[in-house]
């Protein structure tokens, strides 16, 4: 399918768009590739925004490729906002009214923070956290303030709380749910993170919702109230109640000039099939902004706003655009990771917050309350289904195999030392976990031991 000298234009220089461009270039020497973004000149890691604010890195450290990389790979970068797309004549119109044509268009426009129409949500000092501009805004909004409130207990919420904490700005953290992130995490895990948040002197308010945001005479936030009427003074409000596909500009009315201008089909996101095709020929959507008409796998959602998914979308679409035999997108075993202040979290496979009768779980938590592991396995077939780990790094390839091949849970349990990815010399909790299982089940499984020599030379065999 590789037509010579195609003009491929990608809107969005995030992980999905950039991955797509890189992989197209690897297989197609002749294509003209252009990446457009209004956010920054170069691709940077959105996930690292918090570290810039905390002083761990500067912006330039978050750029995964040096600036010469794009030229060398003949990937044109254009800094501009696309305002409209004329699908009929295959042209983009920029906010400065310039235009650009394309043969193939890839929409990789990412997300934007949700706002739910709260009174006062547009006051100065109230903001979400998604883009580089948001970071700059947060920098100026939090200058010399003495109190902040974060609304919304998700991953970006806790990151924002950590950011403020690093600058010693007291934070009140409003979480609607009973426990932190308990729509994803099982109860014990949620409670562990609750405790850890408090340990960092963040004022965590569970089951608390935002009522309204109150401004002062100059239009700056000065307080919020909760739904129960409590008033909290603050000079900054972080709204982190999720993100939605960033597709507003696509929804604008068709261009008046051309009557039969096509519109792209959208719902919450841009509707695509398993090949990332939209309803318009030669137009594709990937990453955060794409919404699958049908979920790509039973345990997957229609929209997945994570880094890894964006990367895999980019890889797969690039393959399809450069190959005669396009393949449907087929994600493998689910995996994800995050860090809650000091506690790292990794998950592989299927671990819902609550599970049905078919499953059983083993949960072990260290006495210190900062290391934990949970396995979910089939009650009848005893096969491992998924794992959550906190403060305990696990090997991705091990669990990818174990879960996709349906290994026996007890085999995994006795071989945990092979599955662990913790740094050398870290305390092993393998035996403690196994002891707990043995005790609960009245069994006597034993740790699969390594010889002294194996340990000395670091053999995993």
């Amino acid at each position, binding site marked *: 399918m590789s037509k010579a000298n195609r003009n491929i234009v990608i809107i969005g220089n995030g992980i999905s768009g950039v991955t797509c461009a890189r992989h197209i270039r690897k297989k197609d020497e002749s294509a003209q590739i252009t990446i457009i973004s209004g956010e920054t000149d170069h691709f940077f890691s959105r996930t690292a925004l918090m570290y810039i604010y905390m002083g761990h890195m500067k912006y330039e450290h978050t750029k995964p490729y040096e600036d010469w990389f794009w030229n060398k790979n003949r990937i044109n970068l254009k800094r501009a906002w696309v305002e409209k797309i004329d699908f009929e004549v295959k042209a983009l119109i920029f906010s400065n009214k310039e235009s650009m044509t394309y043969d193939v268009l890839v929409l990789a426009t990412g997300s934007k923070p949700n706002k739910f129409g709260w009174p006062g949500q547009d006051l100065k000092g109230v903001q979400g956290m998604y883009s580089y501009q948001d970071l700059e805004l947060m920098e100026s909004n939090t200058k010399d303030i003495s109190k902040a409130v974060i609304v919304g207990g998700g991953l970006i919420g806790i990151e924002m709380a950590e950011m403020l904490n690093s600058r010693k700005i007291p934070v009140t953290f409003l979480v609607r749910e009973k426990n932190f992130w308990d729509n994803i995490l099982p109860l014990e895990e949620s409670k562990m993170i609750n405790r850890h948040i408090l340990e960092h002197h963040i004022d965590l308010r569970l089951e608390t919702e935002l009522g309204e945001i109150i401004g002062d005479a100059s239009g700056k936030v000065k307080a919020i109230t909760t739904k129960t009427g409590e008033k909290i003074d603050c000079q900054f409000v972080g709204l982190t109640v999720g993100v939605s596909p960033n597709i507003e500009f696509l929804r604008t009315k068709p261009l008046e000039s051309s009557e039969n201008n096509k519109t792209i089909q959208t719902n919450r996101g841009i509707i695509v099939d398993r090949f990332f095709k939209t309803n318009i020929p030669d137009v594709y959507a990937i990453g955060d902004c794409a919404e699958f008409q049908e979920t790509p796998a039973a345990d997957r959602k229609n929209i997945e706003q994570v880094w890894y998914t964006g990367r895999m979308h980019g890889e797969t679409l690039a393959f399809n655009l450069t190959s005669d035999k396009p393949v449907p997108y087929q994600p*493998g075993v689910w995996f994800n990771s995050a860090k809650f202040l000091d506690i790292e979290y990794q998950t592989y496979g299927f671990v819902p917050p609550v599970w049905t009768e078919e499953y059983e779980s083993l949960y072990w938590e260290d006495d210190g309350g900062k290391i934990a592991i949970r396995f979910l396995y089939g009650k009848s077939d005893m096969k491992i289904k998924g794992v959550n780990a906190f403060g305990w790094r696990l090997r991705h390839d091990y669990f990818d195999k174990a879960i996709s091949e349906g290994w026996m849970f007890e085999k995994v349990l006795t071989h945990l030392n092979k599955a662990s990815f913790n*740094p050398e*010399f870290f305390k092993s909790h393998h035996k403690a976990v196994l002891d707990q299982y043995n005790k609960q089940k009245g069994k006597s499984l034993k740790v699969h031991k390594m010889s002294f020599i194996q340990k000395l030379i670091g053999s995993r065999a």
Partner: protein
Amino acid sequence: MKTIQKIGLVIFVFGLVLFTFLPFFGTYQLEKETVETNVKEIHTDKMVEVLSPMFGKTYSSNFAFISDFKSYFNTYNDGLKANQEWDKVIWDNYAFALTKASATGPVSENPFLFLGITVLIGVFGALLYILPLYRGQTEGIKNDGIFFSSMKSKGLLGMITGAWLILFYIVLYWFPEYITNLVLMVDPISMALSGNPASQWFLYGFIYTLAIIVMGIRMFRKYRGNAYQTIRTTSVMFFQLAFAFLLPEILVLMNMPWHDFKNIWPLDYSFFYEYRIDGMISSGALGMFMLIWGIILIVVGVPLFTYFYGKRWYCSWVCGCGGLAETLGDPYRQLSDKSVKAWKIERYLIHGVLVFAVLMTGLTIANYFSGFELLGQATDQLHSIYGFAIGSAFAGVIGTGFYPLMGNRVWCRFGCPLAAYLGLVQRFKSRFRITTNGGQCISCGNCSTYCEMGIDVRWYAQRGQNIVRSSCVGCGVCSAVCPRGVLKLENGDEEGRINEMPIIIGNNSITVKA
């Protein structure tokens, strides 16, 4: 910052300032006897004659003293040189020894007092600052505010620190006669350890060791909860204190040559120099052991240990240069240049130095066995070029002086010939690698930023590729700072160690080759 830490800082700065200005105190007076006891017998008469105008005169500063000394001494030598009387020229440099012996100020009378109010109080202040660090905080990564810090991100404080260090090294290597007061302070310690008065090198070793220990304690605070960092830091502290500082002095006490058993050629570039070999051969069984042990380390130790554990067994667990970099230098690790260009320069430089060291040593050994006829002069020339350019300027002035400007491993990365040798083994025949954890990388860049060797760790991690790089010293910090648990330093089977075309796990649509 807690009050006690502020007090600590003030005390530390006080000690440092006093240390810096101490060399300018005191008076100097040269006597005939001083010359007689401090110069070689063959030079005694001449030196007494040349310097006689200075006898009995009291100089109120070392500048005045040294300036007079140099003018008399140089006038004498220059005269001979002009007449081409080369064999009469005095090539030895007596400036340091005579200045030190002529010092009559308070420092020579009260060395302990001055050691106390400069170095020891500095250590005390530093500990007051360091011990309460992160107290009351949870275990975890402590990198908040590093790029806002003037000291740690090439701000004014960093520049001043760099300038101070560079100056210190220049004076130490080439103008030690100006810091005799500092050397005098540690004389009693040197006497107690080795029975000899201190040289500038003893002073240097003393401060160096203290720096590793004090800043090692800082590492314990900073990386609390990370067993790898803690154990590795303990190891470098031990090797510096026991093997580099105490043991060599004790050897001297026993009339043995000064020897650091953990130093390995070609880092220890003078190992095969005539005087070293003769020294070892003439020192009985222990001397022979030094020679054989040194050779075993080069021929067997390096390849074997590096095969099993990677070069880290030396660079970040044993080595003194590495020890200083990992402790004193840790606050600056993020300043290393990660660009591909820097990597290119690195490879030319470090392998260039290795080639230089090998050729020079080859010639030296050939000379040794051919009875010094072959190229005798040339080797001496080479030795002094290497000693000046590599041993002093590169390893010291640039290697440490540039910590606050180019990161803490400038020497290890761009210059150390032993690191080059270890690196070749690590790259081509080793079980060590940093494993990348499947597809978990989010390209955040923490690993690359905090890699002191300037390795762009993320480049590999984000494509699911293991990191196998000759320069990696296995400090483990990339793994520590990774927020997603992507990196693990480990030794394992050679098979699958280098995965050039990794398949990133998680996408079953295609088997993507990055």
